[in-house]
């Protein structure tokens, strides 16, 4: 069993046996068909990325219609425009990059189930499904698994699909997912976008309250920077606790090692970045040592010592950048970086260092 899957995977053998039987039947069914399309991977071994319909496609106008004119008009509109493909959304470049990595993985390991598996996870109504599939086919995206809950919360389904990362526009659902132990982030549409790399998936992470817990963040907010520096120096050798996206980094690392094993380190199509406001000298060591203690590697670590993240991210050009603070998200977006907010930890109660009256900002 792959350890990159979320912890609450079914433990009883009866369910496992059922799952094996189902998979054997599905595999036999697929193998007997004469088709060139690659078979979707076994969920247990795959890195499952669940994207919502509004992150994959830009559905701002339709959303407005739903809010102003109601469900019936909204669905009727989609049915009437079923053959018109939707425009790409915030997660679209990320999904395309995942597909590129899959192609390369399949070349090197033709029989492996350790691939990215992209699932469309949406609480959209099933009637919209036809337009979504038409759009997906239009852009030639490899999305085989769909989950349209018709208005209900997708949280239970995220677990059922063994999701490693969930991207959505709805910050409440994302918060709920994080509370359930699933790595998740809220995406935003941006007007401008930088030109992105086509043959390498680039993922940037903030450190505190994203990869790591918010324990150090709490110290800064409550006791100030000086206390924070002293604390980090003193506890340099004590690993930080995990944050909500640690498992996703781990999953990426596992796939990266498959490339290293085939001598492809220099050409590895996955590259990870740490972009943190910490300063290297005073608080950087603890971060690097924590990663090492977890057996995780990160390709590039950028310690900004409080400098704005936007310009640096503009140079890095990640397909996605995860941060817990809206202030950084906004700064990144202004300069064209696709950003995803991780609504976790004490950072949600503050804006630009000041305590906000209402906890948890909504987008």
């Amino acid at each position, binding site marked *: 069993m792959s350890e990159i899957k979320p912890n609450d995977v079914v433990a009883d053998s009866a369910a496992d046996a059922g799952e094996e039987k189902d998979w054997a039947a599905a595999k*036999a069914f697929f193998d007997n068909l004469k088709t060139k399309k690659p*078979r*979707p991977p076994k969920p247990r071994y795959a890195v499952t990325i669940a994207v919502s319909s509004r992150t994959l496609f830009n559905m701002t106008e339709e959303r407005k219609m739903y809010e102003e004119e109601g469900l019936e008009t909204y669905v009727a509109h989609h049915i009437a425009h079923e053959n018109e493909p939707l425009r790409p959304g915030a997660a679209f470049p990320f999904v395309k990059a995942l597909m590129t990595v899959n192609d390369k993985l399949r070349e090197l390991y033709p029989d492996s189930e350790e691939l990215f598996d992209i699932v469309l996870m949406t609480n959209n109504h099933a009637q919209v499904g036809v337009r979504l599939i038409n759009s997906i086919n239009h852009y030639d995206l490899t999305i085989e698994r769909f989950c349209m809950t018709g208005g209900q919360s997708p949280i239970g389904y995220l677990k059922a699909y063994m999701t490693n990362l969930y991207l959505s526009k709805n910050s409440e659902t994302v918060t709920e997912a994080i509370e359930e132990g699933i790595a998740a982030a809220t995406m935003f549409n941006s007007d401008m976008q930088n030109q992105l790399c086509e043959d390498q998936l680039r993922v940037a992470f903030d450190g505190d309250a994203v990869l790591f817990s918010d324990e150090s963040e709490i110290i800064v907010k409550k006791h100030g920077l000086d206390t924070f520096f002293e604390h980090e120096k003193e506890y340099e050798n004590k690993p930080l606790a995990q944050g909500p996206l640690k498992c996703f980094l781990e999953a990426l690392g596992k796939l990266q090692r498959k490339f290293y094993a085939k001598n492809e380190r220099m050409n590895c199509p996955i590259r990870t970045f740490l972009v943190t406001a910490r300063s290297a000298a005073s608080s950087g060591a603890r971060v690097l040592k924590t990663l090492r203690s977890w057996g995780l590697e990160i390709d590039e670590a950028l310690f900004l010592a409080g400098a704005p993240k936007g310009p640096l991210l503009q140079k890095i050009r990640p397909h996605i950048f995860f941060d817990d603070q809206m202030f950084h998200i906004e700064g990144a977006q202004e300069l064209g970086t696709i950003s995803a907010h991780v609504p976790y930890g004490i950072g949600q109660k503050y804006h630009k260092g000041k305590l906000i009256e209402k906890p948890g900002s909504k987008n």
Partner: protein
Amino acid sequence: MDPNIITNTDVVQLPSSVIVIAVSCHGIFDLDTPTELDTLSKGPTFSFIKAIQAMNEKLTGKTPKVTLFDVIILAKDLQGNQAKIENSIKHYGLPISRCWFFNNEEFTQSLKSTNAKLFLSMDSSDVCKALQEGVPAALLCPQTQTQAEGDKVQVANPLKVLLSGDVMGLPEEKLSEAGLSQPQLQTFKAAKASMAEFAAVIREMRRHFAREDSPLRVTLMSVLGSSKEWASALLTARGLGLEVDEAYCLAGASSGPILNCIQPHIMCYDGLYSVTQVPALS
């Protein structure tokens, strides 16, 4: 009057033009635990009857004595329990007009003489037999949530019907190509043949309600088929005039955990995959 057909005098007997839904007694009541009482306790599919009742209530706004569908119970090999079953139906105030008692050998014959447009049972072999005889049939899924408290009809969770995206979307040629066994192919064909009639019954129920807050939800799940066939199934459903609320395409992923989330009351049986009964939902 056939002594094996018990009529429920608490419920208005409907004209034969009304759609008959035949439900297997096994599961509605707990027939396994021996009891000294006159009435039986609720079984795992009891909440289904209550959900139908809630649906009728919402529709007509009248008391449970007036029903839109003629719901009858089929009790196989339960002649000894006639009195208890009769009492239990009245005790819980269930909207059941008649109860048919028969032996296993008489099953298909009895089913046909009821003129049922839909047969529901927890037993997949009975569902299979019904399909072979051309009677639209589906599995009733055991529910662990206790729905109605006492005898009051609560605003229960909506009645969920799960359609098979594989039956609706996969062409038969593809299945033969995929190397399925003869019995599986036969069940699949039978399910496909009765799909239009099955859809007609569900459509008749569903059309009275709007998309939001409906007491009946139609779900489509595709296990083996690809997304292309799933889309085809959605269009087929639409062509049959059926409003699908939720849709899932598994493309080979295990159906158990997903079924656990969906929690259907009624599930289309297509004989394709190993889950013939929804596991007791946690």
